[in-house]
């Protein structure tokens, strides 16, 4: 269950970037998660639901791009598909394969929400009226 820890790290990155851009809300988050990264996507999504509460990314749409695993087969001296760590080379059957892609866990991009200053001001005035 380290997906919860990953979700916390994603939240920190979102908040840092959102803050650096003038505290704007984030409405979409694009993640890249490799097939070999040992991440359970459903657990990560659940973790993000919890971790993003009260952050700039609350209610953001989470897009997850799955990156296919591949590796260098030492016997074939070529790159082959590697859907699992213990998969054999589809060409020669060897297990001497060094992963070259599919281990990444990355925040690829964020979509910052549009800001309309007038609307924000109105909102602020409305709020102060209620005080």
């Amino acid at each position, binding site marked *: *269950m380290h997906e919860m*820890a990953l979700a916390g*790290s994603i939240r*920190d*990155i979102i908040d840092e970037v959102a803050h650096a851009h003038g505290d704007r809300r984030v409405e979409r988050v694009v993640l890249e998660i490799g097939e070999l990264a*040992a991440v359970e996507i459903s657990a990560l999504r659940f973790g993000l639901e919890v971790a993003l509460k*009260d952050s700039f990314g609350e209610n953001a749409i989470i897009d997850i791009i799955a990156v296919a695993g591949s590796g260098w087969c030492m016997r074939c001296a070529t790159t082959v598909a590697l859907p699992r*760590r213990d998969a054999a080379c589809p060409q020669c059957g060897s297990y001497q394969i060094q992963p070259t892609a599919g281990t990444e866990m990355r925040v690829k991009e964020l979509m910052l929400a549009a800001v*309309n200053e007038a609307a924000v001001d109105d909102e602020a005035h409305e709020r102060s009226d209620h005080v």
Partner: protein
Amino acid sequence: MTKLTRDQTMCSTCGCGSGEIRYNGQPALSAAPLPAPTQAFRPVAAAAGAHVHDHAHDHDAQKVKIERDILSHNDTLAAANRAWLAARAILALNLVSSPGSGKTTLLVETIRRLAGEFPIAVIEGDQQTEFDAERIRATGAPALQINTGKGCHLDAHMVGEAFARLPLAAQSLLLIENVGNLVCPAAFDLGEAHKVVILSVTEGEDKPLKYPDMFAAADLMLLSKTDLLPHLSFDPERAIGYAQRVNPRLHTLTLSTTSGAGFDAWLDWIRRERATLPGARPGAVT
């Protein structure tokens, strides 16, 4: 908007818990200052000092390319730990395994046999109790117990905190016993020289296939408790084959802490690794 600080929701606390991390039973006295943001990300507006709030201020929705590793914060702290260790020629090993593989017993025997060659210190990671650190301290070696609360692994921040709380001599051996867990610690670099995975023969030879990531992350596998092999239908060759299937570069040693069989090869491996550190001197033979 309530902005939670990193410490309140630290990554090792699995969601609900906060502030549960203990060092030798004590919470961190004050929240450590947040490390400076990593240099990898430079917001354009902030860098240019351009974000002035005296103009009409509408923004369209804006896509921001990040391309940042999710664990980049941990990795930055791990790199700092690694530099700190290198400056002192300290060999740090991160020992990982399932609960019950005999990590602590193996450490106690390792310390006993290496006594007098070079200083040894231990960082113990467990969710709760100081039992393991007390077992280590009984050998005379300094030990710091980190209790992770609900956390399932040690992270680089905790280990960095431990450096300040543990007498760590230059050119010593630092053994970090991670939380017993064959999944999560694989992803978290602590700044160690090597991850050493321990698989005991009572666990089943197919474990490297069931939990491949830990065996892929390790540099050395110790197949332990081999004195029990006569009582089991465990095929060591098959276990090693499975482990090397997920990690062709994995070195393996078989040993028994109880009988002592194979133990010297493990100690020699440590001595060799230690000797490769720049600035390390051979152990003072006593």
